[in-house]
């Protein structure tokens, strides 16, 4: 899996992260994996629900925002953006 981080996320961790997955997992599980690997992401990625996620992050697969229970798999290319709601 190829993960591209945007904005400040790219300076907290590597801009491109490669992760090998043996089976499909949920976005929630992927975020947990990432936080272990890149602890700097914890303030943004420690999300348990879609509402938590919406307060910090938006993750895209093929330009579609993912839900926390969306499945991701090894050949996916994901983009991570910090999300600020409102304005």
């Amino acid at each position, binding site marked *: 899996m190829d993960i591209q981080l945007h904005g400040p996320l790219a300076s907290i961790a590597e801009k491109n992260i490669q992760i090998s997955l043996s089976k499909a997992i949920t976005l929630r599980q992927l975020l947990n994996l990432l936080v272990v690997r890149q602890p700097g992401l914890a303030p943004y990625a420690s999300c348990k629900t879609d*509402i938590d996620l919406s*307060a910090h992050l*938006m993750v895209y697969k093929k330009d579609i925002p993912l839900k926390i229970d969306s499945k991701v798999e090894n050949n996916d290319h994901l983009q991570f953006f*910090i999300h600020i709601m409102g304005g």
Partner: protein
Amino acid sequence: MFGYHGKILRVNLSKHTTETRNIDEEDFRKYIGGVGLGAKILYEETDSNTDPLGPDNPLIAFTGPFTGSAAPSSGRHHIVARSPLTGIFGESNVGGSWAVHFKRTGFDGIVITGKSDSPVYLWIHDKGVEIRDATNIWGQDTFDSSDHLKDATHKKATVAVIGQAGEQLAKIAGITHIGSNVRAAARTGMGAVMGSKNLKAIVVYGTQKTPIANPEGLKKSFKPVRLHLREVTKTFSKFGTSGGIENYEKLGNFPLKNWMQARWKSVSKVSGFTMHDSILTGKTACHSCAIACGRLIKIENGPYAPLEGEGPEYESIGTLGGECLVDNLPAISKANELCNRYGLDTISVGATIAFAMEAYERGIITVDDTDGVELTWGNADAMITMVHKIGKREGIGKLMGEGSLIMARTIGHNAEEFAVHVKGLEPSAHDPRRFWSQGLSYATAARGACHNASWGHAYELALTMPEIGIPEPQESYTVSGMAETTAKLQNTMCMQDALVICRFTQIGKGVDVNNVIDWLNLITGWDMDTDEFLETGERIFNLKRLFNTRLGISRKDDTLPPRFTSLERTGEGLNNKLPPIGQLLSDYYEFRNWSEFGIPNQEKIDSLGLKIL
């Protein structure tokens, strides 16, 4: 009575008189405060002949039961009057510290009528109300005026003040509020209403507490919510509202080139992240707010230096930056500061400049009209020059100060086709082609294209409100459920503006409807339940609608500009579709029990207890 003083201050500037009037608890329970009571008074005291810039148009500012109570993010108030920009219901919600200081003078609201024969300001304090001469500060900008007024009154006072734009009746003039931070009641031309009364400022400072029914219970109830709110808003607090720019551009929600363009390589240059890493020096907060979304910036070098103070918010960057394709953050910050100084609405100013840039590109206006300024896309200096011209009402700035609709009608050549507004109000920086609920709300909100009337974009993306019957986020690009979700959100937002509490407490569901009802009951001693809460929000929304229908507003006006209904943007990874506004409107009217022409049915009016109006 708890949660209120039960009193409003009435000022007649023609007669230079002031008077205190009582308000019954029954009226508070029915309309709460903020926009609710403001709308009721405005409805009762005006008719279809009231000139928005005439002495009979009351300028009303109302606090709510939360004001001064330590409820999170409740240092806000709501200002209403008939709008000179749109001709219909005008309203603007503003944070800062004015509301709290005003309420501490012993009043819940203020109603100002008449016109002074010379410039004056109001000084409202614990011992009374004074109408003072303002001749010496008339013509000064809001910052200089505020310094002067604080020296003349109390150093801790908060000042609601107009700049040169409001004095000269620019229809996109707002009221700048200067206390512990700078906040603007920007929208719908409330600054021009104030200017039309020869009223330069309302200065407030008080120390009187409002009685609370159950202070211990309230304290206990706030504690866990405040901790949760702080946790879920930490990213928002770190980067501010403009931290959303890059992702909103990715989503196709960020306005570019007068809403023509979908993708912008320069977007990161104007984002909250760049601000954070370059010019940010600190944060500011409205009274009782732990989120602190305000930005403090300092620019020491370059053509826009020196500049120190409040930085631009998401909406201001969206309009002064994105819509004009200006990718220079210091220039946008300068324009933002000038808008605060002149007392101008950054949204309408940015949008009107973007409209003028398109008119220039199409050859409808030329350098002969702009005093030699090349009004080309991305021209930062031209954008700033236009802000000066609008603020001073000079040259083409005089026309631009009337807003994009009047400007379009004046310059002709079918320019109305690309004037992006609803009912005369330019939209904020959220694209209804990405969020249809936003579009439906732009079309039906009382003041025109108002993003705050529903906050629909957030409820399409992730938020839910099972408390009011929105158990799941609304699916984007779907007609089913869109009208119902939008209407329910509009009713709930009316309650936020009546109580008065900040929209941003919704982030991550930091504060939910149950919290709010709990606090309202603990403050007032009432026993309001969810049904009554929702009915009250619906009553306020319908009251604003009735104000507008009395002025002839109907389905013909509940629409979106051609840019949103006929221009499909293209761009890499862009996923957006034109909103089917007619179909959405029909569903919406049906859900609201309004006629097919958008008029509330008598049965609905009666059931909401609005018959007496």
